[in-house]
C-alpha cells in the first residue's frame, strides 16, 4: 500500500486539562509523537483516551495546555481548518448513511477543498482502491460490513491528506473476524510513515505497530515508552494490574 504521507508532521500534546463540570476528564496529559511515528494509547474505559483524541482536533476544546503540530500550537487556528489537517476515525465509523460510499469520500473534497467533481472522484477512487473497496463505491454504507465501513471511513479521512491520523477504538465495534482487515490497513498506514495516535484495546496491534505506547488512567498518562518496555517491564502498579487483566 502506498499512501501519500509526505504531509505528515510531528504531534505534541502538552499538559492538556479538561473538565466537564466537576468531572476532571484530563488532568495534565503529555504525549509526543514524532513525524511518521505511531503512538498507541491504552488504558481502562473512562480514563480519558477518547476525550484526549477529541482535544487534539478540537472537537472538544481543552481548558488549558497546548496541542502542537510540527512544533506549532494549533489552539489559535481556525478549528475547521485544523480538522482538515487531522484525520479522525471513529469507533462507530460515522459514515453518512444517505450517501454512497464514493460520495462519503468525495464530500469534503468537493465542499471544503472545492475540488472539481472529476478530481474529487479520482482521489476518492484511489483511496478506496488502497483499502480494497473501490468495488463498493456505489453502495450505501448500510450495505457494507462493519469492517468495510471502517475501511471506507479511513479512506474518507485519508482523502484529505491529513498531517496526523487519530483512531478512536477503530475496531471495538467490529465482529472479531473483521478486525484483522482494519488493523491491516492501519498497520500499512503506520509503516507508510503516517503520524498516528491510536486509542485501542488491541494489545497485539500496540505491541507490533506502535513506536510508543502510552498508558492512561484517570485523565493522565501514567507510563509511556516503547512497546517492549510497556508490555515486558511495566513499572507502574496500575499498568501492571491493567495488563494482567487484558493480556
Amino acid at each position, binding site marked *: 500500500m502506498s499512501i501519500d504521507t509526505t504531509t505528515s508532521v510531528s504531534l505534541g500534546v502538552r499538559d492538556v486539562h479538561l473538565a466537564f463540570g466537576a468531572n476532571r476528564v484530563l488532568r495534565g496529559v503529555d504525549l509526543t509523537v514524532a513525524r511518521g511515528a505511531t503512538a498507541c494509547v491504552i488504558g481502562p474505559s473512562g480514563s480519558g483516551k477518547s476525550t484526549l483524541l477529541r482535544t487534539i*482536533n478540537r*472537537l472538544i476544546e481543552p481548558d488549558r495546555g497546548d496541542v502542537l503540530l510540527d512544533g506549532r500550537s494549533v489552539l489559535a487556528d481556525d478549528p*475547521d*481548518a485544523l*480538522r*482538515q489537517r487531522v*484525520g*479522525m476515525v*471513529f469507533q*462507530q*465509523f*460515522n*459514515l*453518512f*448513511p*444517505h450517501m454512497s460510499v464514493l460520495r462519503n469520500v468525495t*464530500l*469534503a473534497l468537493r*465542499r*471544503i477543498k472545492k475540488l472539481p467533481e472529476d478530481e474529487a472522484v479520482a482521489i476518492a477512487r484511489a483511496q478506496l482502491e488502497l483499502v480494497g473497496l473501490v468495488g463498493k463505491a456505489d453502495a*450505501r*454504507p*448500510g*450495505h457494507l460490513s462493519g469492517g468495510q465501513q471502517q475501511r471506507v471511513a479511513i479512506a*474518507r*479521512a485519508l482523502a*484529505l491528506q491529513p498531517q496526523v491520523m487519530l483512531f478512536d477504538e477503530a475496531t471495538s465495534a467490529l465482529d472479531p473476524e473483521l478486525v484483522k482487515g482494519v488493523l491491516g490497513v492501519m498497520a500499512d498506514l503506520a509503516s507508510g510513515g503516517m503520524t498516528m495516535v491510536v486509542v485501542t484495546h488491541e494489545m497485539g496491534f500496540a505491541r507490533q505497530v506502535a513506536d510508543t505506547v502510552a498508558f492512561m488512567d484517570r485523565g493522565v498518562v501514567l507510563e509511556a515508552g516503547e512497546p517492549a518496555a510497556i508490555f515486558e517491564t511495566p513499572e507502574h502498579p496500575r499498568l501492571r494490574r491493567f495488563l494482567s487483566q487484558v493480556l
Partner: protein
Amino acid sequence: MDPLRTLWETFFDWESMREALPEMLTVGLPNTLILAVSAALLGSVLGMLLAIAGISRTRWLRWPARVYTDVFRGLPAAATILLIGVGLAPLGMQVWGPNPYPLGILALSLIAAAYIGEIFRSGIQSVEAAQLEGARALGFSWGEAMRVVIIPQGVRRVLPAWVNQLIALIKDSSLVYFLGLVASQRELFRIGQDYAATTGNESALLLAGLFYLALTVPLTHVVNAIDRRLRHGRPAAGPADDIDDTDLALPGAAGGNQR
C-alpha cells in the same frame, strides 16, 4: 315521500353533480391546488427556518421559534385565516389589490409552518450526534455539517409526517372561503357549497368531498409507501437507524393531523 328516497336525493342527485362538475374541474380543482401547493412550499420553507431556529444554540432564535409555534399551533385555523386575511387586507390592498389569495396563502403557510417546523425539528434532532461529529471531524463548519449531513437525514426520517401535513393543508385550503372569493377564485369546497345552496341538496358538496378524497387518499398511500420503505425497504444505515426512522415518523405523523 319516501324518507329513504329523500335522503338518497339529498346526497346522490346525479343532475346536481353533473351541473357542478365542469366548474369543479376547471375552477375549483386548480384553485385548491394553487392554494395548497403554494402554502405547502412557503410553509415548508418557513417550517425549516423554524426548525433550525428551534435547535439553535442562541436563545434569541430558540425562544421566538418556540413562541411562534405555540401561537400558530394553538389558534384555530379559521381564526388565524380571518385575522390575517381580514386584518391585513388594507395592507394587502396597497400591494396586490383586492385579491384575497396572497393573504389566504400566507395564513395557510404560517399555520402549516408551525406544524412542519416541529416535524422537521424532531427529525433533525433524531440524527445521532456521531453524524455531526463525523462531519465536523472532516472540517465542515456547524452550518455546513447541518446542511449537508444532518438535515437531509433528519428530513428523510419525517417524510411521512410531512406528507400528512400536506394532506391537512389541502383540506384547510377550503377555509379561505371566509375571505370572500369572486367566482373565478372559488375552490372546491366553495363551489360545492354554492351549488348545494342553489340546488337545495348536498350532492355538489359531496362531489367536492370526492375531489378532496381523490387528492388526499393517494397521498396517504404515498405516506404509507414511504413509511414501509423506511421500515423494511432498504437497510439504509444498519438496523439501528431503521428503527429510529419508524419510531420518529409515527409520533410526528399523529401529531401532524391533530388540530
